[in-house]
């Protein structure tokens, strides 16, 4: 029940005499309503994280790349280390 999924804001409208901001949010084509009360900064086109009918966060698109760049960095570092492992012993000692 703690499921929260990201969806794209298609449109925003106010309800209850303008006191409540509601959005139509598309989850891969399935459109549902969500309240934007917790994310006043959300705009049309943003991706928001929706939980039980309430958007709780705007996805940080730059940060979203980090999971993949982290892997690249780690992978590269690892390869360097692997090359190092193949170097002759004296060489390693010499560089230390």
């Amino acid at each position, binding site marked *: *029940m*703690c*499921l*929260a*999924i*990201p969806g*794209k804001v298609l449109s925003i409208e106010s309800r*209850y005499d303008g*006191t*409540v901001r509601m959005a139509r949010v598309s*989850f*891969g084509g399935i459109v549902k309503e969500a*309240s934007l*009360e*917790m*994310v*006043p900064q959300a705009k049309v086109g943003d*991706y928001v*994280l929706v*939980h*039980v*009918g*309430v958007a*709780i*966060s705007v*996805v*940080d*698109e730059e*940060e*979203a790349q*980090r*999971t*993949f760049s*982290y*892997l690249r960095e*780690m*992978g590269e570092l*690892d390869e360097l280390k692997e090359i190092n492992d193949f170097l002759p012993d004296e060489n390693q000692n010499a560089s230390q």
Partner: protein
Amino acid sequence: MKFLSEYRDPEVAAQYLKLIKKTVTRPWTIMEVCGGQTHSLVKNGILDMLPPEITMVHGPGCPVCVTPVELIDQAVWLAEEKGVILCSFGDMLRVPGSHKSLLEAKAQGADVRILYSPLEAVRLAQTHPDREVVFFAVGFETTAPANALSVVHAKRLGLKNYSILTSHVLVPPAIEAIMEDEQTRVNGFLAAGHVCTIMGTMEYYPLAERFRVPIVVTGFEPVDLLQGILMTVQQLEKGEARVEVQYSRMVREEGNPRAQELLFEVFEVTDRWWRGIELIPMSGFRLKEAYAPWDATRKFDMPPGEAKEEETCISGDIMKGIKKPHECPNFGTRCTPERPLGAPMVSSEGACAAYYHFSNLAKQLAQ
């Protein structure tokens, strides 16, 4: 789907797995706190892919599982004796109370409804002015703002026939209770990403320091979980105990200030009983005095609970990470998702149900 499918990419997952295997040199026990993460770890077969040095144990982060039996009895009582429209999330309906579940009450004619959002319950109250509508508001910090919002909406709309029965629990006091237990074997935590989306990461610094445990705020997709486990193992291997955020696309250090503002407008922190565990001081929310008209426990004269529990259920030990579901003698025999003896067998986010479904699936695949 954007921001979802890429975190399910088997190749990326395989690379993280490779890095975990390279990094780990000693046995470590890591607890994921959130039931959604337990479900994802089991469903995606991650538990079987991890190197044998890593033991994952499954924390108390399934709100359905830790809601006290008295509250379920009270919800049944409201639906049956008071004739209210009792609404809740689907999982809540099958949890056994001391006499019956909400689903059984529904089958016997009570007006019990499954809703996706508490805001729908407010709408029900609007369209049924002659009926009392009660929303059974369970959940962790993630769900609390939505429940608070429903009360605020009801107040704005001047609705007097809407109230909530709250069973809100908080993650940091649970981590504290787990680490204070002498039997604990937890070396590191994956903290629940969505909880931190609301509350931020500040509350976790003192915990990491006091108990010398790494706490990595992690998401829910396979790649998220594997990265979270890798970050935890890296810290453990280096002897570090820091708070780190894997789920940075959704979590900021300060959390969601607007949501927090709303939470503390409506709720105040209180002691809470956790089903299967114990009373944990200052571990939940209740409605503030100013919102008493929307508090079901103040509005209705609730009967005292009896709290009849199945004595042989070891859910407390499971949720503290001391035991695994298949170590329970009832697992898969007397206790199944169709006929659950304890709450962790009910919700798909409960550890017992997750293990049960998964071992069945494994059996089917082997045939």
